[in-house]
């Protein structure tokens, strides 16, 4: 057990070191993420001004801006840049072979690598995040009750795992369809609209809203933000957290099954 922990710790160290190798790209990529905030504040101010009413589907302008800022936090946990594409590329190029040869678990490795990348990102982004939230503190209604805050934190961690296993599963489809970019495009499109990344899901008309409620995508952006803003009724709060946990388990199992089936199918492409 200790030996295994030492392996995972070493991998984490390596991933962090690798992430820091390209300083320029890293700093630029991290800081530029905050630019859309300004445009979103202007956009929603204009939307509310033209609507003429102080509220839309139960959200005030301040709620919407706070919602948007919170989805940024959620997406900092749940988005997995280059994960699925990277796995598919490794399958196509043959780089994946090292996971067949070395005594190391592919999914465990990818998970640790992703944790490493996220830790470095948070380490650098925490400053700009704190500044933005401080400047925009007026948009927030205040801190939620402890129970809601605990559910919010839990939803971020579970959301990270959901995002990871979901995208890793998409990447592992590369064992069957080699080129997954179109699949990823469709996924990103659905993710963009139905995760609540761009607007609160309450904006959607029925039956879309009901259907989207059944998808796991809402846990990637909408749910943590809605929990923080207490938009989820108390009687649904823990039920939804449990459903999120169930989705995590589902994709965890799917991911491992795809890996084993893919390993059996693999033809050793790329020489």
């Amino acid at each position: 057990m200790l030996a295994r922990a030492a392996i995972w710790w070493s991998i984490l160290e390596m991933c962090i070191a690798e992430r820091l190798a390209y300083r320029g790209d890293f700093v630029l990529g991290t800081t530029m993420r905050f630019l859309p905030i300004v445009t979103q504040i202007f956009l929603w101010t204009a939307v509310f001004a033209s609507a003429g009413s102080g509220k839309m589907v139960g959200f005030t302008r301040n709620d919407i801006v706070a919602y948007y800022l919170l989805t940024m936090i959620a997406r900092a946990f749940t988005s997995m840049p280059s994960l699925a594409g990277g796995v598919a590329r490794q399958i196509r190029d043959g780089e994946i072979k090292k996971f067949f040869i070395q005594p190391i678990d592919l999914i465990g490795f990818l998970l640790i690598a992703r944790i490493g990348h996220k830790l470095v990102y948070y380490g650098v982004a925490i400053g700009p995040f704190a500044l933005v939230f401080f400047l925009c503190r007026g948009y927030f209604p205040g801190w939620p009750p402890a129970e809601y805050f605990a559910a919010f934190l839990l939803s971020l961690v579970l959301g990270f795992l959901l995002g990871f296993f979901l995208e890793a599963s998409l990447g592992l489809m590369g064992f069957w369809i080699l080129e997954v970019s179109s699949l990823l495009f469709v996924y990103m499109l659905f993710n963009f609209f139905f995760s609540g990344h761009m607007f609160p899901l309450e904006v959607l008309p029925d039956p879309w809203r009901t259907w989207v409620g059944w998808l796991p995508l809402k846990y990637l952006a909408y749910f943590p933000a809605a929990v923080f803003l207490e938009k989820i009724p108390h009687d649904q709060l823990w039920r939804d957290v449990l459903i999120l946990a169930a989705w995590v388990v589902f994709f965890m199992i799917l991911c491992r099954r795809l890996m084993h089936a893919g390993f059996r199918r693999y033809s050793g492409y790329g020489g």
Partner: protein
Amino acid sequence: MSVIEIRGLRKSYRVYQKKEGLLASFRGLLHREYRDVHAVKGIDLDVQKGEFVAFLGPNGAGKTTTLKLLSGVITPTAGDARVLGYVPWERNNDYRRRFALVMGQKNQLWWDLPAQESFQLHQKIYHVDPVAFKRTKDELVDLLNVGKLLGQPVRELSLGERMKMELIAALLHSPEVLFLDEPTIGLDVVAQHNIQKFLKHYQQVRGITILLTSHYMKDVAALCKRVVIIAGGEIVHDGSLEGVIDRFSDYKVLTLDFAGDKMPGDLARFGEVLEIAPPRARIEVDRTRIASVLSTVLADYAIQDVSVEDPPLEDVIASLFALTERRAELSDRDAKQAAVAAAPAPSP
């Protein structure tokens, strides 16, 4: 007991056949044609502990496929194989800690980090005792003379330097079996020689079992006593390198230095004349006629010097590969014709 035991191992792939042109690309969206490729066709092989075996064959002969099967990268269509008593494609971690695979130009090291960091990670992954790790690493670094490069990111190393680092990474856990797939591909002569020298020394000192594929006959001649030739997915020779020449070469090269400047004009009666550069001539002579040709030449002409040599190894291997490829093509054609003949006739 054999370290590597292979019985009736087969691997077939289904490969998409795309016809040329844009129209064919659109047709391919609706209907695709596939072809079955039989990369390995039921091979049997035993390798004993401490052997250094060369696996030779033309491109697409099944060499790399066999190495991938033995290292558990792919699963066979049929047959059985055991390496150190393990079934490779079960990918048992105990097995994975006892062998290594090095593929030319395929990077197992972390591209953006210095090789020494990948080495540290290998120490943990392979559960190598820290003292043994340091000793092995220092020994390998010293043998390959890469001490100054350990702190340099892998992406900034030359191809030869990278290959040396790959070898170190592969050997840090002291594997009992090493699979080398064209380890000197793309390297210059000096780098090739250094890697050859290292492999020879390491194998002799450690007594590990090595299976090597290479297109460089110099690698093979320098390192391997036993040569297995695979062509069209089948083993066509298993024996010594000298045995390849004895078995597959039907001629020898006769070099004659004539006493005077005048060269006889009827040398073609002995065989194909390869070169005439007075006073020297080189003739390719059928092996069965070499004794009679020699006695005739010595009796009929004033000869200053004479030598009889085997043809160059590269030539023998090249003609052997060409022959086996031709046979494989004929066999494929026969199989297709048999399949067409066996197909039921269309009803009237």
